[in-house]
């Protein structure tokens, strides 16, 4: 069934997914506002703490997530044109970029824990662990969703529900959006 995206009730990915996206962005937005509020009060401490983060890993992770988003967008586009085999490969590579992100983040977490920069170290690191940790879980869930999308596409279901595929893809892109808010605030600005 063709989805009328111009209808206010059917944004790409479905209205329910967009409600979830707004709730998630609002929740992370509050955390980010909290981070900047305390950051403005303890500017020197936040700057010192921020300098202890690995900006290279964070930049590579940002590129990995953006590339993953690009691959998922292409995969969805290919499904719409019944190119299931090709689409499946794009979903697979998106999953690979997602795992790349998770692994690099774990390496970064290990670095921090080894030198005692845990959640109780400072206000900055409390926000760092909470925000990046919850985002890590979101990416993990996103990978599981992509896995199921790929399986659905591989079975080449002509009656595959396009709205389900777009909703799954929208969740993955939401992880990008959240990271694009977290990355500059935690790694660059302070």
């Amino acid at each position, binding site marked *: 069934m063709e989805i009328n995206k111009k209808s206010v009730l059917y944004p*790409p990915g479905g209205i329910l997914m967009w409600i979830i996206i707004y709730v998630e962005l609002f929740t992370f937005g509050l955390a980010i506002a909290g981070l900047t509020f305390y950051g403005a009060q303890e500017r020197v401490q936040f700057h010192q703490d921020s300098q202890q983060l690995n900006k290279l890993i964070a930049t590579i992770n940002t590129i990995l997530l953006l590339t993953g988003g690009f691959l998922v967008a292409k995969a969805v586009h290919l499904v719409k044109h019944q190119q299931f085999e090709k689409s499946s490969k794009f979903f697979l590579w998106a999953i690979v970029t997602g795992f790349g992100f998770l692994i690099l983040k774990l390496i970064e977490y290990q670095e921090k824990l080894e030198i005692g920069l845990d959640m109780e170290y400072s206000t900055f690191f409390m926000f760092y662990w909470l925000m990046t940790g919850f985002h890590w879980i979101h990416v993990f869930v996103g990978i599981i969703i992509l896995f199921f999308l790929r399986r659905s596409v591989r079975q080449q279901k002509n009656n595959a529900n396009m709205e389900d595929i777009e909703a799954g893809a929208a969740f993955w892109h939401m992880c990008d959006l959240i990271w694009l*808010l977290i990355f500059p605030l935690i790694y660059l*600005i302070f």
Partner: protein
Amino acid sequence: MKIIVERNTTTLLILISLTLLTSFFIHSRYSVIAILIFAFIKINLVAFQFMELKYAHRIWKVAFLLFASFLLTILGIFLL
């Protein structure tokens, strides 16, 4: 179809370029503004191009633009 694919590729290249650019900014009062503006551009590129928000009803487009603008403005106020 070809145009859409090329736009996605162009979007990715812009996103990566902006990311690399922001990563090399020196810590200063003005870099905060630039980083927030770049973040705003990146968020909107992902939403409008990759999530295909550009095809949605204008209410969704406006809502997203307002939300992103509001959030980043609040952050800018706290940080400057």
